[in-house]
């Protein structure tokens, strides 16, 4: 199964429509969490919202996650060790308040297990690459950066110094 999610806050019709159009060529079912979008999908199963605990149950059975470039989704994919295709929201299409998702994909492009599609036309290839990805464990550099921040927080609580 491929699981598509646009996060808890805003609809993202451009992504749902593109996936709906690709779905007949994908050799597996697609389930999409659409938020408050208006596009009526024909080829995929859609749900407006999925509660966080249901989402955790579904992601376990998922081969690939396709999503807006929200950090919650990136961290969730990492937690379940699933490959992730990111398609950023654009302010110019009214999809978010600003273009921070473009900046996010700029920083994450090339990380293991993350494939970026900046345009609808790149999604087909990105999904194929995502499905072919072998997942390793959380990269060592990520673990080191994370350990640095957690020990800074620990020290701040104990001493007020960072």
């Amino acid at each position: 199964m491929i699981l598509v999610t646009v996060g808890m806050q805003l609809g993202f019709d451009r992504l749902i429509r593109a996936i709906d159009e690709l779905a007949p060529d994908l050799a597996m079912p697609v389930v999409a969490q659409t938020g408050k979008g208006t596009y009526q999908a024909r080829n995929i199963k859609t749900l407006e919202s999925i509660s966080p605990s249901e989402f955790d149950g579904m992601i376990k059975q998922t081969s690939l996650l396709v999503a807006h470039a929200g950090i919650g989704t990136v961290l969730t994919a990492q937690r379940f060790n699933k490959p992730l295709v990111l398609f950023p929201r654009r302010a110019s299409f009214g999809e978010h308040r600003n273009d921070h998702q473009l900046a996010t994909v700029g920083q994450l492009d090339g990380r293991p297990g993350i494939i970026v599609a900046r345009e609808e036309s790149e999604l087909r290839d990105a999904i194929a690459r995502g499905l072919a990805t072998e997942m390793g464990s959380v990269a060592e550099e990520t673990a080191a950066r994370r350990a640095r921040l957690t020990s800074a927080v620990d020290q701040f609580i104990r001493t007020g110094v960072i």
Partner: protein
Amino acid sequence: MTKVLAAASAGGHWEQMMLLRPTLEQFDVHFATTHPDLPRRAGIAAATILPDCNQDQPFNSLRCLFAAFALVLRQRPDVVISTGAAPGFFCVLAGRLTGARTLWIDSVANAEKLSMCGRLSRIFSTRCITQWEHLADNGRPGYAGNLL
């Protein structure tokens, strides 16, 4: 034992706070978020749910501001930490005004510039850190690693 209030909105803010959970749980920590399913899923029994809000919603923001102050006055934490967004900032603000040590960790989503609450936290929070080294500016905000 040091009392810590850890406030994070639903979504990525909360996911980032959960990565800090093992560190926070060495202390007497109380979590606050904006969606009741999140602490339930994480097995956190006594969390506080704050009304969600953002800068475009003045009425919700005011409700959330009162709820955050009520929470801080009830808990009287020694330390307040937030990974965003506005509801967490209100907790930081209330904490600072009641004498708590406060830490703003700007969300890793803000790779190009600090969030609006992050910019306010440069002034109102004891410490403010960004998760992107290129955004650090003489310790305000500082950089001390990254959760991603």
